[in-house]
């Protein structure tokens, strides 16, 4: 069953066409990896889905209903949540306050506490650091807080934009494990990654963007097996991602 469907989506940014007629379908409880070179339009795709940038053509459907004319808040209410690139924590707020901001839409105190318990269960480190100011955390910890902050509002589809960028190898692994955990708990995920090997390993489906167009899509397993694809789109087999993920 399809949860989110993007059809023929085009986006113009400052006179340039950033996305050209992208069509995608994300099935419920799956992980979709969006890969591609820098500037291929991966982040723009996520920003268009969440409503940060306006699309010029096409449709975005959630449960079959077009949400492309809705505001960010209305899309949030339907469970579309973006964890932005570069973590973007509120630097002077504490970890707890950052999580509270993630739960900004939840006005029910009891529900909020319950969600907080769930989050602290998944992220014990975040719980430990809850009184600390966000800017004092390490990069990996900040990424955990950013994901926790996105997760606290109980998204149906969580979009992670470059979650491993600039992280130590050990943290990269931890983020990867986390994605699997979140998926198992029933949240659909779209993950944008430069580290395509990692992305393919943890995803069910993948698509490759090239200068704003959809170049290829299919099950992630096929990508990993297809040497031609690897060479054409993933930058050759000898460029191993850092962290020694290759088993």
């Amino acid at each position: 069953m399809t949860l989110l469907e993007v059809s023929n989506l085009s986006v113009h940014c400052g006179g340039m066409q950033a996305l050209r007629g992208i069509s995608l379908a994300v099935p419920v409880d799956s992980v979709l990896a969006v890969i591609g070179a820098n500037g291929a339009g991966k982040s723009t795709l996520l920003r268009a889905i969440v409503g940060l940038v306006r699309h010029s053509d096409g449709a975005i459907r959630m449960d079959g209903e077009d949400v492309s004319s809705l505001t960010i808040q209305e899309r949030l209410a339907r469970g579309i949540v973006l964890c932005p690139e570069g973590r973007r924590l509120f630097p002077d707020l504490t970890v707890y306050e950052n999580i509270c901001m993630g739960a900004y839409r939840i006005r029910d105190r009891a529900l909020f506490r319950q969600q907080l318990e769930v989050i602290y269960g998944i992220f014990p480190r975040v719980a430990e650091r809850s009184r600390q100011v966000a800017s004092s955390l390490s990069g990996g910890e900040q990424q955990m807080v950013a994901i926790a902050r996105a997760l606290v509002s109980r998204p149906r589809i969580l979009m992670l934009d470059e979650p491993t960028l600039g992280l130590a190898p050990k943290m990269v692994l931890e983020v990867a494990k986390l994605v699997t955990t979140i998926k198992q708990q029933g949240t659909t995920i779209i993950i944008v990654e430069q580290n395509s090997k990692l992305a393919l390993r943890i995803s069910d489906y993948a698509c490759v963007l090239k200068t704003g167009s959809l170049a290829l899509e299919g099950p992630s397993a096929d990508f990993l097996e297809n040497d031609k694809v690897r060479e054409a789109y993933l930058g050759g087999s000898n460029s191993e991602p850092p962290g020694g993920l290759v088993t």
Partner: protein
Amino acid sequence: MVYQMLMNGALAGLIYVIMALGFTMIFGIMRIVNFAHGEFYMIGAFVVLLLFGSLGLPFFAAVLAGGVAAAVLGMVLERLLFRRLVHDEMPGMIMSLAVAIILKSLGLITFGPAEHTVPRPFTGTWQAFGAVAPWDRTVVAICALIILAIFYLFLKHSRLGLAMKAVAQDPETASLMGVKSGQIYRAAFGVACLLAGLAGALMAPIYNVGPYMGEMPMLKAFVVVILGGLGSILGAVVGGLLLGLSEAFLSTLLSPLAALIASFAMVLIVVIVRPNGLLGRTAR
């Protein structure tokens, strides 16, 4: 005499703090240098002149009304004029200058050029360590402290206050959390103007009320905010008390002119040595 100077400085500084808080808040959240901030102070004072001075309503009711009137006007002007200039510093500044001139002129047309006197709700003095403090100024200082405490609690523990801080630090990410920036701008402008209106309303019986009364507090707020750091709430508190005390000591020991020069010298030094202010965040 030292105690008297401390007393004078603290009494003056607390009002600077209240003025500077709103000024720095509007800048922090909307990136607008609101030169019309002093005019909201004036509006608060005129409301007290009307309600308390002329109609004889209870003083604190008039003060609240003054704050609310300034806040409501602030929110209306924010929606009509400032919303479109958010994060656009230069046009925002010019718009605020225009608003300042218009409000001042409206004050002049409505109330005339002469300075008006508001009867004093409190009289008498009290003493501590040989320092004398008039009750009316003391009441103002107590009110300022109460306002500060409420403002602190609001920022620290309310959902809206948290959202304001979040928008000030990263508006885009805040919008990803479902914060409607327009609501926050309105609320921030309203709260800032409420603070300015309350300050003006409280000071109405202490100083004279006239269309130009907002200029001096505005100037002080500007100095305080540069000292403390534009956009920094704690900086506004520290800067306000610092300015109040330095003025009190220098005016008494040397002359008011020396105090004025010193306050701008401090601004210069801070701008050169710590461009983000004493407690300002370093550039993001």
